[in-house]
């Protein structure tokens, strides 16, 4: 599979405080890629910078340092006409379906906007056919959803309309930023399955979420983000099946599962062995979030633990890496 989107040491720094004196680093040296026909989950809690990354990919927020490459070309500083061309290939869907629509207009106006900007000369009948195909691809009945105001439709329908809008452009990459977190449980899975269908069509999808179960269900690879830094990434099965970083383990231990209690999950995680990455490093499993509080691994690197599975070195509370048993400190 060819790499479609690649982030190369991307960082985002905000100027805060009076007169912009202080700096807030939201995203720090993030590098990963998404191939065609692949779903990558970007998992993080609030403040992790995951939405910021999504916005940077969509050029809604400028990149401070680093490069974002689409099909090999650096898109991180695109403007004007080139940016519009980029939007033919890359689109986004956001968290709040009701905020994504201008409330004073009808919902299908989003299609009209696309037509006016990208397909001004297409004949009406041809356009209507394109619309029908897109709506069909997202399993929506045109009769039920066209010519309605946003408040007359459900959250699930609105989100699917947004995917249909993106499909009109024949996109190759979709950024899905928490797109189902505001939907009801029974409609979530339909929208999620839709993303999987897109994958089958050859699209690349970046699925941004805080919910590990969703990420696990749908993605091929997972990137775990904490405070702007990647702490672990790799094939989903490996990251979830054999989590190495303390933060990943803590996340997995906190997810409420239907058929297992928190205690059962925690016990299982504790007894899963943590492999030594190399003889000089060892990742220690921290039982409490308090230990993670002291973790500030700005200087440590991502190390490849097994094929494709990368982990960031975890510093202990003493500020140094925990030594391997039997070795001198």
């Amino acid at each position: 599979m060819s790499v479609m989107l690649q982030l190369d040491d991307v960082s985002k720094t905000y100027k805060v405080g009076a007169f912009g004196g202080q700096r807030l680093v939201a995203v720090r040296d993030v590098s990963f890629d998404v191939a065609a026909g692949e779903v990558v989950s970007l998992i993080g809690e609030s403040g992790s910078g995951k939405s910021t990354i999504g916005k940077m990919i969509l050029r809604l927020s400028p990149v401070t340092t680093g490069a974002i490459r689409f099909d090999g070309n650096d898109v991180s500083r695109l403007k004007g006409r080139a940016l519009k061309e980029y939007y033919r290939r890359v689109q986004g869907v956001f968290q709040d379906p009701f905020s994504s629509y201008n409330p004073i207009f009808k919902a299908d106006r989003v299609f009209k906007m696309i037509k006016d900007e990208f397909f001004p000369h297409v004949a009406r009948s041809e356009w209507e056919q394109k619309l029908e195909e897109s709506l069909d691809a997202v399993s929506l009945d045109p009769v039920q959803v066209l010519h309605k105001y946003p408040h007359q439709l459900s959250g699930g329908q609105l989100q699917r309309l947004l995917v249909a809008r993106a499909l009109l452009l024949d996109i190759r990459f979709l950024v899905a930023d928490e797109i189902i977190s505001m939907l009801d449980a029974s409609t979530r899975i339909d929208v999620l399955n839709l993303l999987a269908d897109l994958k089958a069509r050859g699209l690349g999808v970046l699925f941004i979420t805080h919910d590990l179960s969703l990420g696990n269900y749908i993605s091929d690879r997972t990137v775990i983000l904490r405070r702007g830094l990647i702490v672990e990434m790799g094939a989903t099965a490996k990251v979830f099946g054999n989590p190495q970083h303390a933060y990943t383990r803590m996340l997995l231990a906190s997810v409420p599962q239907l058929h297992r209690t928190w205690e059962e999950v925690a016990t299982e995680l504790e007894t899963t062995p943590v492999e030594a990455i190399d003889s000089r490093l060892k990742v220690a499993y921290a039982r409490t979030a308090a230990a993670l509080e002291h973790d500030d691994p700005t200087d440590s690197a991502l190390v490849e633990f097994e094929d494709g599975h990368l982990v960031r070195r975890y510093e202990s509370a003493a500020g140094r890496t925990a030594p391997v048993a039997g070795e001198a400190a």
Partner: protein
Amino acid sequence: MALQVDDLKVYYRTLHGDVQALDGVTFAIGDGEIMGLAGESGCGKSTLGNSLVYLTGRMKYVSGTVTLDGAVLPIWDFDAMNPHRFKHVSVIPQYAMSALNPTRRVGKMIKELLHARGIPYKSVSDELLRRLELVGLGGEVLDRYPIELSGGMKQRVVMVLSTLLDPSLLVADEITSALDVSTQKAVAELLVEFRERSFVKSMIVITHDISILSQIADTILVMYAGHLAERASAKVIIESPRHPYTRLLISSLPEVGIRYDDKRLVGIPGTPPALLDPPTGCRFKDRCPLAYEKCAEQPPFVEVSPGHSVACWRETP
């Protein structure tokens, strides 16, 4: 029985008529029981939870009785409910943590609240500090402004405040929804802790997230479109539900471990009915794969096995 609700009906007034949000619910909660109230938006769970404490401007009490510890709660009378609120029945409203007055320090806000309820601060200050320590917040949180606290900290402050007078019943409305997954776990575990230490006798935990309920609730009550669908112990609801809605709902939840490539999950097609002019009969029949002619008549909510009640013609013999 700590709480007994009999055929409670609460509607919302709107320009276009009454929305029958809560249309005749009957159930009971025992002492020390944590009951999860689950359902999707518009099912009436928030209406139910809130109506036990106070009726907001648009809510209209229609009929039914609510009995707490043997005494009838006059929920239709705002002023008559005053002595009961906070002391016997308390609520943590949805978005409570976002509703803390940003211009007041937490300690001052608590003092003002207690004063408004006619409770001298001195009489509870020791207990307040003790409980704040218990939930992992020091006394210094009283000197902070809400903006200085994280979501989890604010939620814990609200939880301590709501249970300060040891109410018999606590209604917690979506208190874990806006939190990170690690804080969710902490807050959910705190609820159980409160029950263990008898700060609260019984609880109604309202949420759309059934997996949280599977961890902390003793029983789960599933609602759909203003009616009760099913009630059983948490284990039974999750492992062997009987109402078609519950079954479809449980099977549509992705879990860590289930992957799309292995097993494609299916949702429930369609949408719940509008409650402005609700359909007759079972309200789930339009989306139910098991619907048949009898569903045109509303099924009663009956016990089909000990501690397990369902409202479905297919399940009632």
